[in-house]
C-alpha cells in the first residue's frame, strides 16, 4: 500500500520531517536565538505526533506548557545574553560516529514493535489516575515549579553580582 494514499501517513511523514529538520537546525544554526526558536518548532512537530498516537490532551499540554512557557522562557532569556565565542571541542567526527551507531542500535531494538497504535486517551482516565495514584508526583512537580519561580525572582532582584 502506498503510504501517501493515507492522509494520516502524510501528516506523520510531514511532522516527522519537521521535527528532525528542526532538531538539526537547533544544533547547527549559528544564532542561538534561532536555535531556541527551532526548539518550539520541534515541540509543535512532536505535539502533532502525540495527537497521531492518540494523546491529543498531552499534545495540548505540551503546546501550552512546554512550547508556550518553557521554550518561550528560553527564547526571551537568550535574547538578553550576548553569545560569546566558545571554542568547541574537536570531536565532531567522533560524535557523528557515536550518534550514528546509537541511532542504528536503537532502531534495531525498536523494530520489534510492529503493532499499530489504536488508542485514544480519555481525559477522565488521565485526571483520575493523576489525583489517585500519582498525587505525590503531582505535588512534587508543583513544588518544583514554585521553587523555580522563587529562584527566578531572587536572581532577577539580586544586584551587584
Amino acid at each position, binding site marked *: 500500500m502506498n503510504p501517501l494514499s493515507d492522509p494520516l501517513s502524510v501528516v506523520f511523514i510531514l511532522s516527522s520531517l519537521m521535527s528532525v529538520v528542526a532538531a538539526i537546525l537547533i544544533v547547527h544554526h549559528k544564532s542561538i536565538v534561532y536555535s531556541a526558536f527551532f526548539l518550539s518548532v520541534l515541540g509543535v512537530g512532536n505535539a502533532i*505526533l502525540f495527537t497521531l498516537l492518540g494523546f491529543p490532551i498531552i499534545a495540548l499540554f505540551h503546546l501550552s506548557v512546554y512550547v508556550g512557557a518553557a521554550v518561550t522562557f528560553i527564547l526571551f532569556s537568550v535574547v538578553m545574553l550576548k553569545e560569546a565565542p*566558545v571554542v568547541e571541542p574537536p570531536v565532531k567526527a567522533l560524535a557523528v560516529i*557515536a550518534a550514528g551507531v546509537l541511532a542504528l542500535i*536503537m532502531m534495531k531494538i525498536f*523494530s520489534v514493535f510492529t503493532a499499530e497504535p489504536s488508542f485514544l486517551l480519555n481525559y477522565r482516565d488521565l485526571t483520575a489516575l*493523576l489525583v489517585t495514584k500519582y498525587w505525590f508526583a503531582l505535588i512534587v512537580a508543583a513544588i518544583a515549579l514554585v521553587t523555580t519561580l522563587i*529562584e527566578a525572582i531572587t536572581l532577577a532582584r539580586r544586584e551587584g*553580582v
Partner: protein
Amino acid sequence: MEASWYLFVSSILFAIGIYGLLTRRNMIRMLLSAEIIFNAALLAFLSLASLDAGYGPVGGAIVVIAISLSAAEVGVIVSIAIMMFRMRRALDVYELKKFRG
C-alpha cells in the same frame, strides 16, 4: 503507521541531541540539545504506551508530570546561565569549574 516508525523518529532525535551535547560547550546550546533528547524520550514513551490500552493513561500521566518538571528544570538552568553570564561574561561550561565552593 506502525509504532516502530514513531520510535525510529525518536531514535533519530535522540542521536541528534547526543551529537549536540558532545560537540557544544556553550551552556544554552547544551540545554537545547538536552531538550531535544527530552522530546525524543517523550515520543518513545508515548509510542510504547499507545500499544496497550491499559498502560495508555499511565503513560499520559507520567508524561504530564515529566513536562511540568522539565519546565522547572529549564527555569533553573537558564537562571544559572544568566548568573554565570553576569559574573563571567561567558557561557562556556568549562568556566563552571571556577564556581566550585
